[in-house]
Each structure stands twice: as structure tokens, then as C-alpha cells.
């Protein structure tokens, strides 16, 4: 396994596009893990600790740091090229194409803008949580869970309106 990284300057994306971005990156041939976070000192330290960065890079908090772990250098290099191309494509879409308002159904609660870059996709953790069965607060939690699911099914509540962040 090998890791590679790339810094994309001054890049801000909404949470939906970055989620999709992460999933696409992870699905690429030969890629085991992918992470895209703001290049802050604490995030860089976390990536080093997790073994996704061989050594610390200078922090640059307004830039996006993409790190991939894959089968070999060819895989990770290709993934980073693809990542940058995807982000540039999104940039063109966002700034020159559709540009303005995107309406997403309330059930997905994505009306806007509070932006989020992607964390690592970890199917192992997801599976563990599913096995654990969610909350651990007994009846009260199960009831609350039902409420949440019911609201989702009915698309309840206003869509989240957010702000780019």
C-alpha cells in the first residue's frame, strides 16, 4: 500500500458535492482509503497519526488536502488526477453553469449551503454501528429514533438552510 496527497488551493464545496466526490474517489480501482479535509494543523496531525500521511505538511487552513491510500503509486497518482479533474469540473458547473440555487428534497435535508468536505469513508465502522443497533438509551432512544425515521419518511420539517461552511 502507498499513500499520496495533493493540496487544492482555496477550494470550498458544499457537503453534497463533497460527499459524492469522496464516494467516487473511494470507488476508484486500487484505492483503499480516501480523505479530503481542510489542511489545518490538527487535521494534518490526525492524518499522520492515521498513517495516511507519511509526514506532516505545512498547514494551509483555506486549502483542501486530498489524501489517498491505494495499491501502488500508479493507483494513487491516477486517483489524485481524477480527483482534481472532478473538482475542476464541479468548479465549472458551480461558477459558470447552474451556479445559483439548487433545491433538494427536504427529506435529504439539503437546501443549501453549509458546506462540508468529506471525511474518510469507513465501511468497517458503519458495519459495527449497524450491529450495535444505534443509540443506547433504551426505550427513550428507540422512540426518538422512530421520530427521526418518521420525519424522514414524511419529509417533515423545513429543509435545512445553511450556509456555506
Amino acid at each position: 500500500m502507498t499513500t499520496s496527497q495533493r493540496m487544492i488551493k482555496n477550494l470550498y464545496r458544499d457537503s453534497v458535492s463533497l460527499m459524492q466526490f469522496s464516494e467516487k474517489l473511494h470507488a476508484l480501482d486500487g484505492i483503499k482509503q480516501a480523505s479530503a479535509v481542510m489542511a489545518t494543523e490538527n487535521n494534518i496531525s490526525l492524518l499522520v497519526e492515521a498513517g495516511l500521511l507519511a509526514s506532516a505538511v505545512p498547514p494551509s487552513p483555506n486549502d483542501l488536502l486530498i489524501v489517498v491510500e491505494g495499491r501502488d503509486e500508479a493507483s494513487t497518482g491516477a486517483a489524485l488526477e481524477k480527483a482534481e479533474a472532478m473538482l475542476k469540473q464541479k468548479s465549472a458547473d458551480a461558477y459558470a453553469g447552474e451556479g445559483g440555487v439548487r433545491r433538494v428534497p427536504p427529506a435529504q435535508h439539503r437546501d443549501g449551503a453549509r458546506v462540508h468536505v468529506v471525511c474518510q469513508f469507513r465501511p468497517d465502522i458503519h458495519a459495527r454501528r449497524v450491529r450495535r443497533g444505534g443509540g443506547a438509551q433504551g426505550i427513550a432512544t428507540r422512540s426518538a429514533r422512530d421520530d427521526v425515521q418518521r420525519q424522514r419518511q414524511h419529509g417533515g420539517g423545513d429543509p435545512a438552510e445553511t450556509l456555506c461552511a
Partner: protein
Amino acid sequence: MQLRAASIGETVPRETFDAVIQSVFDTAVNLRLADEDRLITLLISEGYELPQGIRIWKNDLSLQTLTPGLRAAARGGVLRFDSSPLAVDLRGAPVWKCRVPELHADMNLAVTQKAWSIAWDLLNVEQEISNADIIADDLFQGNLDSPLSQRIAKPVLHLITSTEHYNLEDALLAAAKMIGLGPGVTPSGDDILIGFLAGLWSMAGQDQKQLSFIRSFGAELVQLSKGTSEISRTYIYHATQGQFSSSLSQLAEAIATGDGVEEATQTAMRVGHSSGMDSVTGLLIGLCIWNEVSTIPHRGRIKEVT
């Protein structure tokens, strides 16, 4: 095309200012004010307010002509952008003000404790369902699945203990380990700190010792926030001033009054991918500081761990 602003946050200049577009999102544009280290935000929303926000509401409005780097300027109360026909009339728009510092939440009241517990349960369920990196319960129970939660749990607990003891130095050491940590343009650590400040401001009331701590902590936190993104720094700055988004403010008020807490919690959690949940985590933890309410889940555990 000239639109009327539906509302304006209290910290937005009203008449005249110069700015540059810092970032563009689907329903929001951040503007960096000239000669100031802060952003204001033009957002399309039916009701979401920000202290730094200029809110407009119009279906099918396009922001396609706006790109980062373009200049913007308000003259005579009308905001215009270079190379764009879009203009926003700020004149006469109602000013939105966050009321969190005026809440004086009393966590000793049964109604407040019940509201807190409802919000806590809803939060943990939503975090589990959405497979969030940070699950509030786990921070206190040691079930730390993700590298992020493993890394952030200890600073969160230290932040709680040091704040309880008015230990500014230790609180800042904990905050330094949280700043800029996690996914997102407003990373999870920042969101928790913002929520935490909302909790403290909600309760501080007229207690001078508490207010003094919050202000001192806030002043230093603004310096620490240079270690995170410019957008996140803006939210942190306003949080140190007791100013928060409408969704977080409404949840704080719902807990303080016991009214509408379920809806307010759901709304606050829906912000962004995980930002809302992280902020609510911080808010609920912040509300546990400086009181001896043993009926709140984890209250004893927080003390035990720390």
C-alpha cells in the same frame, strides 16, 4: 435584477461597504469585507438567519454570474457586484438579532432538564443513523469508533473540566487541540466549540464571573481560530460575541423555555453534513457547565472521566 433583502444580520454594515467575493456556493456567497478580517454572507433562504447574513428569498434565483474574486460594494444601501446584474436592496430590511445572551437558561428547572434530555436523545439517534464521525454519547463512554472521535474526546472532556473551574489556560489548551479538526469547511472541532459557547452564553445571564470567563476565553479563541478556515473563523468570531445562527439560537431558546425542543433540535441538526449535529453536541455539553444538575445524562460521567 434588484431584490430586496428579506433580513439582515446585526453585524452587517447597512449603508456603505466594499468587499470581494471569497467563495460561492449553491445558495450562498461569502464576501470578504475590505480592510477587515471577516466575512459577510449573502444567502438564499426562507428563514435561516446569521449574524453576518444578508438573507434573500426568491425561487429559482441564479447566482451564476458571481465568481470568487469579483468585487462587491454597497452604496446608499444597495449591494451590487461587478459583472453581474444582481443587486440587493438592504434599505428597510428587518435586522435579525441573536438573543442567546439574553436567555438566562436555568438548568436547575425540571422543564429545562427534560428539554435537554429530549434534545440529547434526538442528537444521539441522528448521529447514529447518519453514521456521523462524532456521537455525543460515545465521547463520555469510551466507545470511540473513528479516529476523529478518538482524537477529539479528550480535549472535549478537558474543556469541560477546565471551564467548570474557570481555568482559562487549560480551556485554551483543549480548544487548541480542537480548532480545525475534522471534516468540513467548518471542521467538527470548531462546530463543537461554537455550540459550547452557545451553551455558555445561554446560561451566563448576569453572572460576572461567568461572563468574564466567556469573554476572556473568546478573545483568545479568536486568535486560535487563525488555525482554521476563513469561513469557520467568521462563525467562531461571532460565537465569541454571543452571536449564533437562528437554528442554534432557537434550540437554545427551546431548551431554556421547554417549548418546541424536538422541532428545534431537528432543525438545528440539519445544518450541513455534520456541522449541525456537532454544534448541537457542543451546545448541550455547554449547558451542563457551571451547574450541579445530576439528572442530566452523563453529568456524573463527565465529572468521573475528567
